[in-house]
């Protein structure tokens, strides 16, 4: 899975989440809005009903006033007048209320403004007739009633009232429809929103499943590549081991086969030496014969060097010198070959990991070098050391080489001080071997670990093998080795070895 695809997927998740949030918000807002609208619609419907009711109330009061007027005209009883006054007193607030209720509607406002004068006119007519009746002018009053002007006005009022009611009915129908629509809308928005949420949830589930599938696949791939890696490492390790073994065998065979001609060279050089003796003996005899001196008895000169003179003597010496160089070179070559052989043999040896009391091991080494230490006036101090699991022989070789070196390369005339210290760190034991000897120039720090290489004043015998051998051993034991030193300042060799025998160390060989 590439980083790009991963980013895209993450973006997708964020977008999905945002969309879900948006939809929910929209649904909530829509619902709140629609509920408010429905309440408003219901209020308006109520308002319409109230208005209709008020129209009826106004008409009722007018009718009541009219019937009270008729009653009074017929009977002249004051009760009817009281009734009339009461109806009028209720009519006025009812009218006011009605005009308030319909003030929001221009159609109704026009109708009521048309109606108001009619009411006034009608009430005025009632009052006039009642006043006439009270002042005993019944005929005048009856005349007014009979003229029927009042009836027309009344009819007109009823007309207007019907129109108003019709208008209110229209509004009622309209508002009811509105309210219905709002509710339907609210329901459908909720429905659609829920549908959206379900769809989004579905997409989310799909995405989660897809990414978990991708993760499973990645897991499987990771496992596969891990296994592959393990296999590759095993393969490489086997290759390396084989190559190493090959080199060991090669070194062994080469050094071995080099020995065979060396035996011949040495052998025949020695034969030549014998011949040289014979030749110069004869030359001596011949020269003596020439100078006519009596020849020495044959037996007496058999082993002794023949007496030579002048150029013959020079010749003999040159001969000896040449042979001497050949022999010393052969000796050196033999030592080098032996060293390579012993190193390869060491490299082929199997390790036997055992629990080692390091201090005891080093004390034993110090005992064996006590004589050299006494000669060099050196004191070897051993601090407490960590114990480790390792190969005893290898450790002995490592420490005895280092202690030997420390004793060997002390400063002349200065009492030696050699200290072995130890500590542990992260599963490794660190050993430090310090001396106050002649030290090693930093430019030689790598060189001293190389085979057949030495550094500093060459006044001590040695092949340049010890440290190379020690480092090879330390590496085979799974450790590392380093040196810190300055010329004339002493040296400290640091060896880091695993405390426990590392699994997979080259302790077993096939």
């Amino acid at each position, binding site marked *: 899975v590439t980083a790009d695809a991963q980013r895209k997927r993450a973006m997708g998740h964020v977008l999905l989440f945002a969309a879900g949030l948006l939809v929910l918000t929209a649904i909530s807002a829509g619902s709140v809005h629609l509920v408010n609208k429905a309440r408003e619609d219901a209020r308006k419907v109520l308002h319409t009903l109230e208005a209709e009711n008020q129209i009826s109330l106004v008409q009722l009061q007018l009718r009541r006033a009219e019937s009270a007027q008729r009653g009074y005209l017929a009977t002249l009883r004051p009760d009817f007048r009281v009734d009339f006054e009461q109806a009028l007193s209720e009519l006025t607030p009812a009218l006011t209320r009605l005009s308030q209720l319909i003030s929001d509607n221009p159609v109704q406002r026009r109708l009521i403004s048309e109606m108001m004068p009619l009411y006034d006119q009608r009430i005025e007519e009632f009052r006039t007739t009642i006043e006439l009746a009270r002042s005993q002018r019944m005929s005048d009053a009856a005349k007014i009633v009979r003229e029927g002007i009042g009836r027309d006005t009344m009819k007109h009022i009823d007309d207007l009232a019907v129109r108003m009611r019709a208008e209110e009915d229209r509004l009622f129908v309209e508002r009811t429809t509105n309210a219905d629509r709002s509710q339907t809308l609210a329901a459908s928005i909720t429905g659609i929103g829920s549908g959206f949420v379900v769809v989004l949830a579905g997409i989310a589930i799909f995405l989660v499943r897809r990414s978990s599938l991708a993760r499973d696949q990645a897991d499987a791939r990771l496992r596969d590549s891990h296994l592959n890696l393990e296999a590759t490492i095993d393969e490489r390790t086997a290759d390396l081991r084989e190559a190493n073994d090959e080199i060991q065998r090669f070194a062994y065979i080469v050094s071995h086969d080099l020995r065979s001609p060396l035996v011949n060279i040495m*052998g025949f050089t020695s034969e030549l030496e014998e011949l040289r003796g014979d030749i110069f003996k004869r030359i001596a005899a011949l020269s003596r014969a020439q100078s006519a001196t009596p020849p020495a008895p044959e037996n007496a000169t058999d082993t002794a060097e023949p007496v030579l003179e002048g150029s013959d003597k020079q010749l003999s010496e040159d001969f000896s010198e040449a042979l001497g160089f050949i022999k010393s070179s052969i000796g050196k070559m033999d030592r080098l070959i032996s060293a390579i052989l012993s190193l390869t043999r060491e490299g082929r040896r199997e390790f036997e990991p055992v629990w080692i009391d390091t201090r005891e091991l080093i004390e034993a080494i110090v005992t064996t070098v006590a004589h050299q230490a006494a000669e060099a006036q050196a004191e070897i101090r051993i601090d407490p050391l960590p114990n480790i699991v390792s190969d005893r022989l290898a450790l002995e070789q490592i420490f005895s080489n280092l202690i030997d070196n420390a004793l060997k390369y002390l400063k002349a005339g200065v009492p030696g001080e050699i200290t072995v210290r130890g500590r542990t760190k992260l599963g490794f034991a660190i050993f430090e071997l310090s001396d106050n000897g002649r030290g090693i120039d930093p430019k030689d720090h790598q060189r001293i670990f190389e085979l057949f290489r030495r550094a500093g004043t060459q006044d001590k015998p040695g092949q340049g093998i010890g440290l190379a051998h020690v480092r090879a051993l330390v590496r085979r034991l799974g450790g590392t080795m380093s040196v810190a030193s300055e010329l004339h300042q002493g040296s400290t060799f640091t060896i880091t070895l695993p405390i426990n025998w590392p699994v997979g160390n080259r302790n077993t060989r096939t």
Partner: protein
Amino acid sequence: MNNPVTIIMIEDDEGHARLIERNIRRSGVNNEILPFTSGTAALEYLFGKDGTGLDHKGSALLILLDLNLPDTTGIDILKRVKENRYLKTTPVVVLTTTDDSHEIKRCYELGCNVYITKPVNYESFANAIRQLGLFFSVIQVPPAAT
């Protein structure tokens, strides 16, 4: 030596062969020395044309054997000699450059009588061979089984 013991020297390096022969002679051993430079030739001589070793029935032999031969290994020759009913009593002296402890052990296991490493130092080499010559002069070699 009481019986005319024949010394069979199997050594591919003629220089070594020469040095060995010289030093044996210097120690005063005058027995016949038959040099072979290859394992095949030596085997042919030892076991004869029929490969049974019957030719040497009753004759006294002493074998000087180098392990590093070009055609066969000395170990093979040693093994075949010690497995042959006529030759198995023949003393075998392994004289070689190999000083590997496994190899030495192997040779003794196979019935080698003496194992000598050729020293590069000529004095030691000459000494070893001369002492071997002295050893030859006192060793009792049985005739090959009949």
